[in-house]
């Protein structure tokens, strides 16, 4: 910390150095905080991304499994399943095929997942099946989960 006064020039006065000191400290502190913030934010974002990615993949996988079983059952005995249920299962298949897993920022993801969830509930209700994606993370204390 240099307390010697700055050389005088046009437009400066004896108080300039004190004012510049404050300014210099401000800028140093800001840069420090920014550096730490970027690092912490990046790490936190990574954790959130991993968690969300896991949950999304898990949910899609769950529907894949259900649709796989339902599809097989329908192929084995199509007369036992109404046209509506068969169509709903095909719709779910199309949504799962078209889900942009590699583009999380694609704005369709919310709508598609919502559509999948509603179709899933409707098919379960029609079949009388009590299925639920319990999920690996549900009921687990978030502090204990780390990726």
């Amino acid at each position, binding site marked *: 910390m240099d307390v010697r006064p700055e050389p005088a020039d046009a437009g400066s006065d004896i108080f300039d150095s004190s004012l510049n000191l404050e300014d210099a400290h401000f800028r140093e502190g800001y840069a420090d905080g920014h550096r730490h913030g970027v690092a912490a934010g990046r790490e936190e974002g990574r954790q959130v991304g991993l968690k969300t990615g896991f949950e999304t993949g898990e949910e899609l996988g769950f529907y894949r499994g259900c649709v796989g079983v339902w599809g097989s059952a329908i192929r084995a005995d199509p007369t036992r399943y109404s046209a*509506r249920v068969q169509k709903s299962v095909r719709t779910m298949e199309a949504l799962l095929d078209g889900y942009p897993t590699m583009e999380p920022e694609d704005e369709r993801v919310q709508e598609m997942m919502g559509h999948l969830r*509603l179709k899933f509930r409707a098919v379960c209700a029609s079949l009388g099946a*009590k299925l639920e994606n319990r999920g690996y993370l549900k009921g687990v204390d978030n502090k204990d989960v780390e990726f």
Partner: protein
Amino acid sequence: MESHDGAWSLKEVQKLEGHTDRVWSVAWNPAAGVAGVPAMLASCSGDKTVRVWEQNPSSSSWFCKAVLDETHTRTVRSCAWSPSGKLLATGSFDATTAIWENVGGDFECVSTLEGHENEVKSVCWNASGSLLATCGRDRSVWIWEVLPGNEFECASVLQGHTQDVKMVQWHPTMDILFSCSYDNTIKIWAEDGDDDWHCVQTLSEANGDDLTIKVWETDSAKMMSGDGYVPWSHVCTLSGYHDRTIFSVHWSREGIIASGAADDAIRFFVESKDGSVDGPSYKMILRNEKAHDMDVNSVRWSHGENRFLASASDDGTVKIWELVPVI
């Protein structure tokens, strides 16, 4: 309606007792009370049961014909007869909707519809009886299709409301569904062919409260002629008549609006033929102050060519009334 400009009075025909907790809702059987078939009424309660009441044709007095119990495990909040009168749907806080069949006077639970995540608040059949709508606290509206053999299939799960959905009601002639919610909106749902139901209009009134009745209208003829959807618009507000929450309103065949409210009263309104105001206006023709000992939860006009009204209350009773003109 034959306009009777004089006074009206509400005659208490009978008080039906039996439920051991508040009665939430009543429903007249649309196929009964005509052609020699004795009139029939269903009521549902916080006591987890549904009671079916029938009118004795010779004595004209009502008795409890059946108690539908040991099915719902929580409050039964809503009940509705199918248009044929053969099926009764009951919606419960236990998250299920039970379907009962009237087999020669005996009622049997023939199906249980599961799907809602929590309390079912309202059930309603469409005009042809081919569809049943349910709604509940999980903010969703479900449309079920009735298949042969009392099988039910879920045709659609409708999301859109952001809070509890309190009631669903079908249009009396078109397959258009209305739902209202704690999110202060009424949503109108229609089908775009093949199970594709979506919200075609949302009615929201920024200054709505639970002390007013609002009337909306559309051009039905134009809608039914297939010219596409004609939006509903708000045409009238009845305010200043209620100082406690209105829980139920029902329009009679003649256009008399009955309301049941938290102040234990039942009120009646008719369109006033002043003609001086833009659009319809209504006036109150009668207020029955102590209709019940507690909140009136539901008022329903009978389907027949009469002025019979049923009401359900927190006091655990159902009452049958007749609105008569005073000459």
